[in-house]
């Protein structure tokens, strides 16, 4: 209890430290929102971690990922049916709308990636730059209803855990995808065909499930903005359950093109209400109406 209380106090202090200097602008509003999420996450993490017989954390269930761009932690309707997904404060929303207006990705000479992007070897950079000249046309995931690959697909929407395997189910904007991660010590399947989501085996390191995936097709991207990889890509994901939250991290290793391993943007997964539903049909309708090259990355 004391550690939970001190966590909450720290989160509150962090909130005010962020709020006071930043009250004047959109950055301050974003900081307020992020601090609120951190408080919520801290509350969830402070709960007792559910465990299976034998002591391992139970990762099973439906999960929302804490996506910083798209949604608040767990949007839901109130008694009157009001729902706010994100940008619920009108002042912050107006500031964000203005910022968006002034930061459009109209690619003329190429779009600059926002945020977290892999560090490529010099010999690979020209290929990445060429892709960035026409992102809407070259992005294999966007406007194609195609499999995003790993780690671009992000964390799973549903986890089914047994002692011998963990199954990941995805409610992705492009469709329903799945992965089966063997936990019985078997090696990677050398006979498996390469695929966008590869071949996965896993093991536990304390309370963290570590998943290693290889055998990828090379035609996906690690993330937006032309983040190529080769068939020799190796991805290591880590799932750590703390209370009612799962901390998800993913590292991409591909020395043929990457100057150093790339850490994908992490996620905090929180319990999602309801049961995983089949993804709606994916039908691309945007490209025919686009009048400029403004890049439109899919939400994760």
């Amino acid at each position: 209890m004391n550690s939970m209380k001190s966590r909450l106090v720290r989160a509150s202090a962090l909130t005010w430290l962020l709020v006071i200097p930043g009250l004047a602008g959109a950055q301050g509003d974003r900081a307020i929102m992020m601090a609120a999420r951190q408080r919520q996450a801290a509350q969830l993490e402070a709960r007792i971690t559910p465990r299976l017989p034998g002591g391992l954390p139970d990762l099973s269930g439906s999960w929302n990922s804490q996506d910083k761009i798209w949604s608040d932690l767990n949007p839901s309707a109130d008694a009157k049916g009001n729902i706010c997904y994100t940008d619920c404060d009108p002042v912050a929303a107006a500031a964000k709308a203005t910022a968006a207006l002034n930061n459009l990705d109209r690619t003329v000479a190429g779009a600059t990636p926002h945020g977290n992007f892999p560090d490529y070897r010099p010999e690979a950079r020209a290929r990445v730059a060429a892709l960035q000249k026409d992102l809407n046309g070259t992005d294999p995931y966007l406007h194609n209803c195609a499999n995003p690959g790993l780690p671009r697909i992000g964390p799973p929407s549903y986890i089914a855990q047994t002692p011998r395997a963990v199954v990941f189910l995805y409610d992705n904007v492009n469709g329903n995808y799945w992965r089966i991660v063997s936990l019985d010590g078997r090696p990677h399947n050398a006979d498996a065909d390469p695929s966008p989501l590869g071949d996965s085996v896993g093991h536990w390191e304390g309370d963290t499930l570590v998943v290693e995936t290889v055998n990828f097709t090379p035609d996906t991207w690690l993330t937006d903005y032309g983040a190529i990889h080769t068939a020799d890509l190796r991805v290591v994901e880590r799932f750590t359950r703390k209370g009612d939250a799962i901390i998800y991290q993913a590292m991409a290793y591909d020395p043929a093109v990457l100057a150093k391993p790339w850490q994908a943007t992490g996620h905090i997964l929180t319990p999602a209400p309801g049961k995983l539903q089949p993804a709606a049909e994916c039908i691309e309708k945007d490209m025919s109406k686009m009048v400029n090259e403004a890049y439109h990355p899919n939400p994760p």
Partner: protein
Amino acid sequence: MVLNPSFRPTNKATPFAGALIPVVCLLAVAAVASAHHGVDGEFDRGKAVTITGTISNVDWINPHIYFTIYVKDAAGKLVKWQCETVPTAYARRAGFNARKLMDGGTPVSVTGFLGRTDPHFMWANKLVYSDGHTVNFGVH
């Protein structure tokens, strides 16, 4: 899934009836660097628009939900608008679905950005229904 009941738009007066003219406004505030997401190739963020009408059908699909809404113009004639908005996976996080979006064909105000190629095409950020409840997808 396409939700397309036998609803037919009528000329019956509603609390939202009347000459509803799309509002176009330009935002002119200092820029702040931040990441963004949006279908800017199709929609003009500088042209905010609000229309009010009744939704006649919903395409509950990915990557974007589409819905058709009939709006009365200044002459009282019903004009068909097409709206595009967030993915179904996103909308479903709050238990929202096609039935709740259509709300039985009751009047709804839709706010968002005007399409670049079609004057009756818009991106929907926010919905306000006739009983006052709102669905706010946020700024995308």
